[in-house]
């Protein structure tokens, strides 16, 4: 599962409206999804596998799928239909799960831990629940052996090593490996092969189940966040006591330190 997102290193903040200006940003494959693809490719290298890349998005998202095929995926499917627009994580999970069900014989579903755009991290576990699969989230080392996935989950207070029989959904931690490069030959093959396109009918879904209509949540409003005011005082080293005095008076630090 991959999602096309605006390149977050290119997204500019509009200084007046304090919103992101996404129009200038290039669209790229969500970074963690490339880490997920890399683990899938390593399993393919080790035991052989057929990798299908799926993405729900507008027609232009086929470029993201082609990029993944140029890195070694075998097949690409774009799930695209006007009815899918405006989906929250519930119908997104449903639509992806329906796609995986239609593909059939899927042992491992890989995704990123979260996206760099809306970053809920809710799609992977949602897909797992729809499919009835077990799941491994925040995986940073992934190996496969004899029907089992062995992976390390990166938690706040430690690393958890788990072993889970397939089928399983794995969400991969951003930056947990170095994705291999695209190959020109594979890219040409991918363009020749093309990206398949599935819509609501192919998946046997109804319009009221997906997209905005199938979304239990709605965004009611967007407000600019008021940020704290700052003093902007340049202080030379001989005046550094002024800072200390201010911090002490605000009870932020204690006289003489801690």
């Amino acid at each position: 599962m991959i999602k096309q997102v605006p390149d977050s290193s290119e997204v500019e903040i509009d200084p007046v409206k304090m919103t992101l200006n996404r129009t200038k940003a290039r669209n790229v494959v969500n970074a963690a999804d490339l880490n997920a693809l890399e683990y899938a490719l390593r399993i393919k290298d080790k035991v052989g596998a057929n990798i299908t890349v799926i993405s729900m998005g507008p027609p232009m998202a086929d470029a993201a799928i082609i990029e993944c095929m140029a890195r070694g995926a075998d097949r690409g499917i774009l799930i695209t239909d006007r009815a899918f627009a405006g989906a929250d994580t519930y119908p997104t999970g449903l639509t992806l799960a329906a796609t995986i069900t239609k593909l059939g014989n899927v042992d491992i579903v890989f995704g990123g831990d979260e996206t760099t755009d809306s970053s809920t991290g809710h799609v992977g576990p949602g897909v797992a629940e729809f499919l009835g699969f077990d799941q491994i989230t925040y995986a940073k080392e992934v190996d496969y052996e004899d029907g089992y996935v062995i992976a390390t989950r990166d938690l706040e207070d430690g690393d958890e090593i788990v072993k889970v029989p397939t089928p399983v959904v794995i969400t991969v931690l951003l930056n947990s490996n170095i994705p291999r490069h695209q190959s020109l030959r594979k890219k040409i093959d991918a363009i020749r092969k093309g990206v398949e396109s599935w819509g609501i009918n192919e998946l046997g879904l109804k319009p009221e189940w997906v997209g905005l209509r199938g979304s239990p949540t709605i965004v009611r409003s967007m407000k600019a966040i008021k940020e704290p005011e700052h003093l902007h005082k340049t202080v030379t080293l001989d005046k550094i006591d002024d800072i200390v005095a201010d911090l002490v008076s605000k009870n932020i630090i204690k006289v003489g330190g801690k």
Partner: protein
Amino acid sequence: MMVGLINAIPVANKDEYKNVGVYIEHRGDEIKRSSLEMIGIGKQLARKINEKLLCVVIGDKVDGIAKEVGEYGCDIVLAAESPDLAEYRTMPYAQIIGDYIAEYKPNIFLLAATRNGRDLASRIAVKERTGITADCTVLDVDENRTLLANRPTYGESTLAEILCRNHRPQMATARPGTFTPAEKEKDHKYEIVKKKVNVDKNMLKKQIIKFIPKKATDLTAAKIVVAGGLGLGGPDGFKLLQDLADLIGGAVGSSRPPVDLGWITRDHQVGQTGQAVRPDLYVAVGISGKPQHVAGMKFSKVIISINKDPNAEINKISDYIIVEDYRKAVPALIDAIKNFGKQKVAEAQKA
């Protein structure tokens, strides 16, 4: 599985749903700080609309934790116990919470957006066929008992208010470090409803082979963060920052490049792909202030920037700007803090 769930999401009869539910995360006998924060906000929401706070505790031996949760102000503690639940596993935990939701029908259900909290949250939402808002920093409830779930988006510049109109419970996860942790209430009356559960063996297929604890730097709990960037020039710079942090009771943070270069571990990273902090004081040392970094610290109350470059972007959001090599500026700040104290003490002794 699939086919059963596909049949659209039924609209809930809202009047059947009442009270605020919270999932309590713990490791061993210790309740996670983030869960105490959830009790805090859960209690606030429940009391605003005169409803009860329900907390779900799951584990092997949970009596101690259940009691503590009650003391923190929960009204009804739902405690599920089994030796098979000693370790956290998604499948049985999601099942048990789902069963509780089906039985007790809470109007609102909250989890902390920790990694295991996020592992569970949307799975439960799909199971219960309802919507969920992720990583909220503002939560409120209106007179119609609608949860107003607010989450920052677009690099923290905007707050999106998200509602779940027709489905129940209204679910949300909350960003750790945002809400004030609950404090124990003297004489608070609570009830513990305990059940022993038999866990379906099919849900125990995930083997937890090993848990390797790591020193967790929870920057979100720190009142003071002293952070270093690429401008430190190497790992040694962080020793100097640690001295300053130790002196004033702070934690050491970092921008991303030092983490990528291996100067410091990733649990210290502040920013869009690290931790989001809102301390009383943030000292940015050799950090330029790129948007991905600023996203994780711009709500700090007081910001001090130590940077050679007078035009560094971080200065735009700083209270105090020290334009110097940090190797001079940080020791000077340390001395000033130490001596400031001495001076005061001397003055007091004189008087």
